[in-house]
């Protein structure tokens, strides 16, 4: 399909227009080639990404409930209901708490480790590999493991506490500790990624600057705060945002670890969306949630762009 032949070098120009504007290097080639090459991807992206996004907007202004009745347009009622509902405010709050805490800790631990590891000669690959394993491990499976670890009756956390003479903690049944468990799991599965991103970022810092500073007599603290930190700021912002977006989209961990937490204490936007859309089948309402979620991620990316520009001009 893609491998059609279209080599027209040497052929006299067969007409003006499109043909003459399709070029490879300096030579004219048949427009069939690029057309055939890009159409399939565009088709799939169109059908499975753009079309759904558009349809989402349409759905979000309907009162559509799958399997029951036909839908009717209700304008912005879904959004109104959404913003007035407790469950949305709760989910939003939880999403923000979970993702900021996760990205803060992941990036923080990642940065700390990157700084330590960067000065190692041997063992760097070993530690990188180890710290990155949680990133590759299937989150659903590891969430099951962590859920078992935090199990009130049979979990090793409480077994340890009991052995130390302290009392049991109902980790997954108290709002605060359940959220902490979610954050712990998210950080555990992400910090390795942050670490690797930081290490890659460090590689771009020229050695000469550090050496020049050392020669000039700058102390360790000076070196760190005045030279290293500014140089890694762009990377830091980048890592921070990657971690935040990753944490926002986190569905697997919450669904498996707490399924929204004791009552809805750890229910995030992604979980709420799943619940409304695929458990209650309130298709219109869930689409509104999806749109809001999308706008939220856009906002965060926008903040990143601004922060990055600010950092670069500093």
């Amino acid at each position, binding site marked *: 399909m893609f*491998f059609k*032949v279209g*080599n027209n070098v040497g*052929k006299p120009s067969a007409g003006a227009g499109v043909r003459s504007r399709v070029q490879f290097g300096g030579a004219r080639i048949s427009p069939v080639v690029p057309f055939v090459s890009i159409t399939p991807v565009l088709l799939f992206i169109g059908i499975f990404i753009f079309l759904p996004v558009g349809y989402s907007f349409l759905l979000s202004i309907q009162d559509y*409930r*799958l*399997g*029951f009745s036909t839908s009717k347009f209700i304008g912005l009622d879904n959004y109104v209901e959404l913003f007035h509902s407790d469950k949305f405010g709760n989910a939003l709050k939880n999403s923000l708490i979970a993702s900021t805490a996760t990205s803060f800790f992941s990036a923080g631990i990642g940065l700390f480790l990157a700084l330590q590891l960067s000065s190692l000669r041997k063992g760097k690959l070993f530690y990188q590999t180890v710290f990155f394993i949680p990133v590759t491990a299937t989150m659903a499976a590891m969430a099951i493991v962590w859920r078992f670890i935090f*199990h*009130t*009756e*049979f979990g090793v956390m409480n077994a340890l506490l009991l052995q130390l003479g302290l009392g049991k903690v*109902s980790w997954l*049944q*108290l*709002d605060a500790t359940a959220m902490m468990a979610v954050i712990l799991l998210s950080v555990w599965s992400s910090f390795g990624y942050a670490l690797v991103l930081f290490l890659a970022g460090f590689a771009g810092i020229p050695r000469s600057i550090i050496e020049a500073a050392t020669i000039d007599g700058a102390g360790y603290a000076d070196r760190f705060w005045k030279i290293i930190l500014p140089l890694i700021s762009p990377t830091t912002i980048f890592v921070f945002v990657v971690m935040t977006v990753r944490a926002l989209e986190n569905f697997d961990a919450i669904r498996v670890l707490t399924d929204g937490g*004791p*009552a*809805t204490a750890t229910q995030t936007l992604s979980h709420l969306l799943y619940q409304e859309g695929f*458990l*209650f*089948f309130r298709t219109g309402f869930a689409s509104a949630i999806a749109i809001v979620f999308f706008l939220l991620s856009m906002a965060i990316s926008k903040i990143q762009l601004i922060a990055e520009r600010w950092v670069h001009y500093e």
Partner: protein
Amino acid sequence: MASIVGGKPERRAALEFFFQEVTMRAFFIKSCLVALLTMVTPWVFPAGTKEQAPSKPAVVTFHRFSTAAHQAYILPLIAAFEKKHPEVKIESVEHSVPGYEALAQKILLSFASGSPADVGQTGYTLVRTMVESGKAIALDETLKGDASFDRNALYKSMMDLGTVDGKLYMLPLGTSTPIMYYNVDAFKKAGLDPQKPPKTWVELKTAARKLKEAGYEGVLWGWSITGNWIFQTMLENLGGRIASPDAKSVDFAGPEGEKALSYIRELVEEGLMPVTKDLVATFTSGKLGILIESTFQRVAIPQKSSFEVRLAPIPTPNGDTPKVVAGGNGVMMHTQDKKLQKETLKFMKYIVTEEAGFIVAENSGYLPAARGAVATLRKKYPDDRNYSIVLDQIERVTPWFSWPGKYGTEIQKILMDMQESVFLGKISPRDGLNQAAEKIKKLL
């Protein structure tokens, strides 16, 4: 190349391509082989594939649960039916969902997506929801003239479960009731008499205290069972109810509801009840003294426990005979095709026969609707004390409440979350009930 072929440049180029790009073709062919692998898959795993049904006998699509616990009685049932009626083939569509609400949603979804279910497994609590979707077929007309269908051979209480607004829509497959399981070894260690399990709520608390002193977790009421079944049981034994059948009057938030929730809250506060959804595991691990769960687990729980397990009627506020809410499920007809309706009806009628009843009762903790089957079971297991209690309760079942309208699933979640919050002490029973009632009224 060119000399052999000659002719127009395009044709030459095309043939050049054909002869030269062997490696690309090989790559392409490899990809096609891989794609073929997917199609091979059904034959790699023949055991699970039911979708390749031959088309000669009539095919009835049956949507149901996929878990092993349900397969244990359904698969033999289907096999026995197909043996008796070789002109009908039951094609199961299994759903891996956690509860009756989700199963009902999947069945409704099947109507929307163009491959509708002919017959579906529906929990008693959702019969109304299915009827209100407009996709359930009433059975009275067809069954009236049917000589082979003897309504009297079936328990009226169970048949009532399938009746909405005077019309029969569902035939019961298996029914369970709430029951108390207790750990005999734990009782002995705690100084309790295994022959005299607690009968009243007060006695239950005392027993739980003794169990706690002996190092056990006291009692666990199965609050997290799907459909808020235990909550309804407690309400009814206090003389209350969840709501009026048309849900115009939402009654669970009344004084009975408060009493029920406060009772459990007190148990939790004293450390006599763990707040967990892991009902069976906590009991079978030996850490729990008393579990209030479903008779559906009648076979599974003793099997998984390394200690002696006995069954007893659940404790009631005053020690009266407990009112028991029917748990379980039945089958409802959804197909609009007249011819297929006949075949589907054969299947549904078979399910309530004595023979089928045996299969259900022997392979699960459920009890069938056929009176004859239950009578024979009683004779077959005269010495099984545990079983006889189960058999006794079956005549007294009250309906599992079924919320009208589209929001059954959400309402059940609101009630479940409310209970969890109350038990964990996050909100008082009165406030929790009021909040839940408000949310539910809004949805209705």
